Protein backbone atom coordinates (compact mmCIF):
# COMPACT_ATOMS: atom_id res chain seq x y z
CA UNK A 1 0.00 0.00 0.00
CA UNK A 2 2.94 2.25 0.72
CA UNK A 3 4.12 1.83 -2.86
CA UNK A 4 0.73 2.72 -4.25
CA UNK A 5 0.41 5.97 -2.30
CA UNK A 6 4.02 6.86 -2.97
CA UNK A 7 3.77 6.45 -6.73
CA UNK A 8 0.57 8.49 -6.98
CA UNK A 9 1.89 11.22 -4.69
CA UNK A 10 5.21 11.49 -6.54
CA UNK A 11 3.42 11.89 -9.85
CA UNK A 12 1.19 14.66 -8.49
CA UNK A 13 3.67 16.93 -6.79
CA UNK A 14 6.34 19.32 -8.02
CA UNK A 15 8.97 17.96 -5.63
CA UNK A 16 8.79 14.17 -5.79
CA UNK A 17 12.05 13.80 -3.90
CA UNK A 18 10.39 15.25 -0.82
CA UNK A 19 7.61 12.70 -0.74
CA UNK A 20 7.89 10.44 2.30
CA UNK A 21 5.47 7.62 2.93
CA UNK A 22 5.46 5.41 6.01
CA UNK A 23 3.13 2.55 6.70
CA UNK A 24 2.22 1.53 10.21
CA UNK A 25 0.72 -1.92 10.08
CA UNK A 26 -1.87 -2.90 12.62
CA UNK A 27 -3.88 -6.07 13.18
CA UNK A 28 -6.60 -5.30 10.70
CA UNK A 29 -6.02 -1.75 9.66
CA UNK A 30 -2.85 -0.05 8.66
CA UNK A 31 -2.15 3.63 8.62
CA UNK A 32 -0.34 5.12 5.65
CA UNK A 33 1.27 8.42 6.48
CA UNK A 34 2.09 10.77 3.64
CA UNK A 35 4.38 13.74 3.92
CA UNK A 36 5.11 16.12 1.07
CA UNK A 37 6.84 19.46 0.60
CA UNK A 38 4.89 22.34 2.10
CA UNK A 39 4.11 23.86 -1.31
CA UNK A 40 2.76 20.54 -2.51
CA UNK A 41 0.18 19.91 0.21
CA UNK A 42 -2.49 21.65 -1.83
CA UNK A 43 -1.82 19.43 -4.82
CA UNK A 44 -2.28 16.32 -2.71
CA UNK A 45 -5.48 17.55 -1.09
CA UNK A 46 -7.02 19.21 -4.15
CA UNK A 47 -10.04 21.43 -4.49
CA UNK A 48 -12.44 20.58 -1.68
CA UNK A 49 -10.29 17.59 -0.86
CA UNK A 50 -11.07 15.85 -4.12
CA UNK A 51 -7.59 14.60 -4.81
CA UNK A 52 -7.17 13.26 -1.28
CA UNK A 53 -10.59 11.61 -1.53
CA UNK A 54 -9.62 9.96 -4.83
CA UNK A 55 -6.35 8.65 -3.39
CA UNK A 56 -8.27 7.23 -0.41
CA UNK A 57 -10.79 5.56 -2.70
CA UNK A 58 -8.05 3.86 -4.70
CA UNK A 59 -6.26 2.88 -1.49
CA UNK A 60 -9.48 1.36 -0.12
CA UNK A 61 -10.03 -0.68 -3.28
CA UNK A 62 -6.48 -2.02 -3.22
CA UNK A 63 -6.74 -2.89 0.49
CA UNK A 64 -10.12 -4.56 0.05
CA UNK A 65 -8.52 -7.06 -2.32
CA UNK A 66 -6.20 -8.10 0.50
CA UNK A 67 -9.02 -8.13 3.05
CA UNK A 68 -7.39 -5.29 4.85
CA UNK A 69 -8.21 -1.73 5.70
CA UNK A 70 -5.93 1.22 5.18
CA UNK A 71 -6.24 4.77 6.36
CA UNK A 72 -4.42 7.61 4.66
CA UNK A 73 -3.05 10.36 6.86
CA UNK A 74 -1.66 13.45 5.25
CA UNK A 75 0.89 15.01 7.58
CA UNK A 76 1.61 18.70 7.67
Amino acid at each position, binding site marked *: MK*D*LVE*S*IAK*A*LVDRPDEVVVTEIEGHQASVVELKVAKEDIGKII*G*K*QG*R*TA*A*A*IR*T*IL*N*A*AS*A*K*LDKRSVLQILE
Partner: protein
Amino acid sequence: MQTFEFEGRTTEEAIEQASRELNIPAEELEIDILEPGSAGIFGLVGGKKAKIKVTTEAQITPHEETETIEANHAESEPVETDSPDETELAFAKEVLENILSRIPVETTVHSQRVNGNIALNIRGDKSGLLIGRKGKTLDALQYIVNKIANKASEKKVRVVVDSEDYRKRQEESLVEMARDMGEKAKKTQKPVATDLLNPHERRIVHLALKPDEALNTKSKGDGLLKKVLIIPKK
Protein backbone atom coordinates in the same frame (compact mmCIF):
# COMPACT_ATOMS: atom_id res chain seq x y z
CA MET B 1 -5.25 32.16 -19.39
CA GLN B 2 -8.63 33.07 -20.84
CA THR B 3 -11.75 34.46 -19.26
CA PHE B 4 -15.36 34.04 -20.33
CA GLU B 5 -18.72 35.03 -18.94
CA PHE B 6 -21.79 32.83 -18.94
CA GLU B 7 -25.39 33.26 -17.93
CA GLY B 8 -28.01 30.78 -16.89
CA ARG B 9 -31.16 30.46 -14.89
CA THR B 10 -29.08 29.14 -12.01
CA THR B 11 -25.34 29.24 -11.36
CA GLU B 12 -25.40 25.49 -11.90
CA GLU B 13 -26.82 25.89 -15.37
CA ALA B 14 -24.36 28.61 -16.18
CA ILE B 15 -21.47 26.40 -15.07
CA GLU B 16 -22.80 23.48 -17.03
CA GLN B 17 -23.10 25.61 -20.09
CA ALA B 18 -19.60 26.95 -19.63
CA SER B 19 -18.22 23.45 -19.30
CA ARG B 20 -20.11 22.35 -22.39
CA GLU B 21 -19.11 25.24 -24.56
CA LEU B 22 -15.48 25.32 -23.55
CA ASN B 23 -15.28 21.57 -23.57
CA ILE B 24 -13.68 21.41 -20.15
CA PRO B 25 -15.10 19.44 -17.23
CA ALA B 26 -16.74 21.75 -14.69
CA GLU B 27 -14.42 20.66 -11.91
CA GLU B 28 -11.44 22.02 -13.81
CA LEU B 29 -12.78 25.49 -14.36
CA GLU B 30 -11.93 28.43 -12.19
CA ILE B 31 -15.35 29.88 -11.45
CA ASP B 32 -16.30 33.25 -10.04
CA ILE B 33 -19.95 33.83 -9.37
CA LEU B 34 -20.80 37.38 -10.39
CA GLU B 35 -24.49 37.16 -9.67
CA PRO B 36 -25.98 34.13 -7.97
CA GLY B 37 -29.33 34.59 -9.69
CA SER B 38 -32.61 33.83 -8.03
CA ALA B 39 -35.52 31.74 -9.07
CA GLY B 40 -38.06 34.30 -7.88
CA ILE B 41 -41.20 33.20 -6.11
CA PHE B 42 -41.84 29.55 -6.90
CA GLY B 43 -39.70 30.05 -9.98
CA LEU B 44 -42.45 32.15 -11.48
CA VAL B 45 -41.97 35.84 -10.87
CA GLY B 46 -38.99 38.03 -10.26
CA GLY B 47 -36.42 35.51 -11.46
CA LYS B 48 -32.94 36.86 -12.01
CA LYS B 49 -30.31 35.35 -14.22
CA ALA B 50 -27.17 33.90 -12.67
CA LYS B 51 -23.92 35.20 -14.05
CA ILE B 52 -20.52 33.59 -13.70
CA LYS B 53 -17.01 34.33 -14.81
CA VAL B 54 -14.89 31.42 -15.89
CA THR B 55 -11.12 31.43 -16.10
CA THR B 56 -9.15 28.65 -17.66
CA GLU B 57 -5.52 28.04 -18.37
CA ALA B 58 -6.26 25.81 -21.30
CA GLN B 59 -6.09 27.23 -24.79
CA ILE B 60 -9.54 26.97 -26.20
CA THR B 61 -11.82 28.35 -28.77
CA PRO B 62 -15.40 28.42 -27.61
CA HIS B 63 -17.72 26.80 -30.11
CA GLU B 64 -20.99 28.01 -31.37
CA GLU B 65 -23.70 27.45 -28.83
CA THR B 66 -26.07 25.83 -31.28
CA GLU B 67 -23.56 23.18 -32.11
CA THR B 68 -23.02 21.89 -28.58
CA ILE B 69 -26.46 22.19 -27.12
CA GLU B 70 -28.20 20.12 -29.77
CA ALA B 71 -29.24 16.98 -28.02
CA ASN B 72 -28.87 14.85 -31.12
CA HIS B 73 -25.17 15.43 -31.11
CA ALA B 74 -24.85 13.96 -27.66
CA GLU B 75 -22.77 11.00 -28.65
CA SER B 76 -20.81 12.31 -31.57
CA GLU B 77 -20.27 15.79 -30.26
CA PRO B 78 -17.47 17.44 -32.18
CA VAL B 79 -14.54 18.13 -29.92
CA GLU B 80 -12.34 20.99 -30.86
CA THR B 81 -9.44 20.49 -28.56
CA ASP B 82 -6.31 19.30 -30.28
CA SER B 83 -6.32 15.61 -30.66
CA PRO B 84 -3.90 14.02 -28.20
CA ASP B 85 -0.70 12.85 -29.86
CA GLU B 86 1.08 9.52 -29.49
CA THR B 87 3.24 10.72 -26.62
CA GLU B 88 0.27 11.87 -24.58
CA LEU B 89 -1.59 8.68 -25.31
CA ALA B 90 1.36 6.57 -24.25
CA PHE B 91 1.98 8.70 -21.18
CA ALA B 92 -1.61 8.47 -19.93
CA LYS B 93 -1.54 4.71 -20.44
CA GLU B 94 1.72 4.45 -18.53
CA VAL B 95 0.36 6.53 -15.63
CA LEU B 96 -2.63 4.23 -15.24
CA GLU B 97 -0.55 1.06 -15.65
CA ASN B 98 1.81 2.36 -13.02
CA ILE B 99 -0.98 2.78 -10.49
CA LEU B 100 -2.64 -0.53 -11.38
CA SER B 101 0.62 -2.43 -11.06
CA ARG B 102 0.49 -1.64 -7.34
CA ILE B 103 -3.03 -2.92 -6.90
CA PRO B 104 -3.20 -6.70 -6.55
CA VAL B 105 -5.39 -7.35 -9.63
CA GLU B 106 -4.15 -8.76 -12.95
CA THR B 107 -5.11 -6.22 -15.56
CA THR B 108 -4.09 -4.87 -18.93
CA VAL B 109 -4.72 -1.37 -20.24
CA HIS B 110 -5.75 -0.61 -23.81
CA SER B 111 -5.60 2.93 -25.09
CA GLN B 112 -7.22 4.66 -28.01
CA ARG B 113 -8.31 8.08 -29.13
CA VAL B 114 -12.02 8.80 -29.04
CA ASN B 115 -13.39 12.18 -30.11
CA GLY B 116 -10.17 13.94 -29.24
CA ASN B 117 -10.07 12.36 -25.79
CA ILE B 118 -7.87 9.59 -24.54
CA ALA B 119 -9.85 6.49 -23.72
CA LEU B 120 -8.18 3.95 -21.44
CA ASN B 121 -9.82 0.60 -21.03
CA ILE B 122 -8.90 -1.69 -18.18
CA ARG B 123 -9.38 -5.37 -18.94
CA GLY B 124 -9.17 -8.29 -16.59
CA ASP B 125 -10.89 -6.95 -13.48
CA LYS B 126 -13.68 -9.49 -13.37
CA SER B 127 -14.65 -8.70 -9.79
CA GLY B 128 -15.38 -5.05 -10.44
CA LEU B 129 -12.93 -4.08 -7.72
CA LEU B 130 -11.59 -1.23 -9.84
CA ILE B 131 -15.09 -0.01 -10.62
CA GLY B 132 -16.29 0.25 -7.05
CA ARG B 133 -19.70 1.14 -5.75
CA LYS B 134 -21.45 3.23 -8.38
CA GLY B 135 -18.17 3.59 -10.27
CA LYS B 136 -16.50 5.42 -7.41
CA THR B 137 -13.12 3.74 -7.78
CA LEU B 138 -13.16 4.16 -11.54
CA ASP B 139 -13.93 7.86 -11.12
CA ALA B 140 -11.09 8.20 -8.62
CA LEU B 141 -8.63 6.53 -11.00
CA GLN B 142 -9.83 8.72 -13.84
CA TYR B 143 -9.50 11.87 -11.74
CA ILE B 144 -5.94 11.05 -10.66
CA VAL B 145 -4.83 10.04 -14.16
CA ASN B 146 -6.25 13.28 -15.55
CA LYS B 147 -4.41 15.31 -12.93
CA ILE B 148 -1.10 13.64 -13.65
CA ALA B 149 -1.51 13.68 -17.44
CA ASN B 150 -2.39 17.36 -17.44
CA LYS B 151 0.46 18.25 -15.15
CA ALA B 152 2.91 16.90 -17.70
CA SER B 153 1.21 18.29 -20.78
CA GLU B 154 1.09 21.89 -21.94
CA LYS B 155 -2.21 21.46 -23.64
CA LYS B 156 -5.39 20.17 -22.13
CA VAL B 157 -5.88 16.44 -22.39
CA ARG B 158 -8.95 14.57 -21.28
CA VAL B 159 -8.66 11.00 -20.20
CA VAL B 160 -11.64 8.69 -19.81
CA VAL B 161 -10.96 5.54 -17.81
CA ASP B 162 -13.29 2.58 -18.25
CA SER B 163 -13.26 -0.99 -17.05
CA GLU B 164 -15.27 -3.87 -18.50
CA ASP B 165 -17.47 -1.40 -20.42
CA TYR B 166 -18.85 -0.04 -17.16
CA ARG B 167 -19.29 3.52 -18.43
CA LYS B 168 -21.10 2.43 -21.54
CA ARG B 169 -23.46 0.22 -19.56
CA GLN B 170 -23.91 2.99 -17.03
CA GLU B 171 -24.82 5.51 -19.70
CA GLU B 172 -27.37 3.18 -21.20
CA SER B 173 -29.03 2.51 -17.88
CA LEU B 174 -29.03 6.23 -17.03
CA VAL B 175 -30.76 7.07 -20.31
CA GLU B 176 -33.30 4.34 -19.66
CA MET B 177 -33.88 5.57 -16.10
CA ALA B 178 -34.28 9.15 -17.33
CA ARG B 179 -36.91 8.09 -19.88
CA ASP B 180 -38.83 6.03 -17.31
CA MET B 181 -38.85 8.96 -14.90
CA GLY B 182 -39.93 11.25 -17.72
CA GLU B 183 -42.91 9.00 -18.44
CA LYS B 184 -43.81 9.01 -14.77
CA ALA B 185 -43.60 12.80 -14.60
CA LYS B 186 -45.89 13.14 -17.62
CA LYS B 187 -48.39 10.64 -16.26
CA THR B 188 -48.61 12.15 -12.79
CA GLN B 189 -48.05 15.74 -13.96
CA LYS B 190 -45.66 16.13 -11.04
CA PRO B 191 -41.90 16.69 -11.00
CA VAL B 192 -39.75 13.63 -10.44
CA ALA B 193 -36.25 13.81 -8.93
CA THR B 194 -33.32 11.50 -9.66
CA ASP B 195 -30.74 10.36 -7.12
CA LEU B 196 -27.67 12.50 -6.54
CA LEU B 197 -25.65 12.51 -9.74
CA ASN B 198 -22.27 13.86 -10.74
CA PRO B 199 -21.95 16.46 -13.55
CA HIS B 200 -21.30 13.87 -16.24
CA GLU B 201 -24.30 11.78 -15.20
CA ARG B 202 -26.54 14.83 -15.00
CA ARG B 203 -25.50 15.81 -18.47
CA ILE B 204 -26.57 12.40 -19.77
CA VAL B 205 -29.98 12.80 -18.11
CA HIS B 206 -30.47 16.35 -19.43
CA LEU B 207 -29.52 15.33 -22.94
CA ALA B 208 -31.65 12.18 -22.87
CA LEU B 209 -34.78 14.20 -22.13
CA LYS B 210 -33.95 17.24 -24.21
CA PRO B 211 -35.81 16.00 -27.32
CA ASP B 212 -38.97 15.49 -25.25
CA GLU B 213 -41.07 18.62 -25.77
CA ALA B 214 -43.33 17.84 -22.83
CA LEU B 215 -40.55 17.88 -20.24
CA ASN B 216 -38.15 20.32 -18.65
CA THR B 217 -35.08 19.28 -16.72
CA LYS B 218 -33.29 21.20 -14.02
CA SER B 219 -30.46 20.47 -11.61
CA LYS B 220 -31.13 20.92 -7.96
CA GLY B 221 -28.79 20.96 -4.98
CA ASP B 222 -25.38 22.14 -3.86
CA GLY B 223 -21.94 20.79 -4.39
CA LEU B 224 -20.63 18.38 -6.95
CA LEU B 225 -23.51 15.96 -6.64
CA LYS B 226 -26.97 17.22 -7.48
CA LYS B 227 -30.34 15.81 -8.32
CA VAL B 228 -32.02 16.35 -11.64
CA LEU B 229 -35.64 17.45 -11.46
CA ILE B 230 -37.74 16.24 -14.35
CA ILE B 231 -40.64 18.61 -14.69
CA PRO B 232 -43.67 18.14 -16.93
CA LYS B 233 -44.53 21.24 -18.95
CA LYS B 234 -48.05 22.42 -18.41
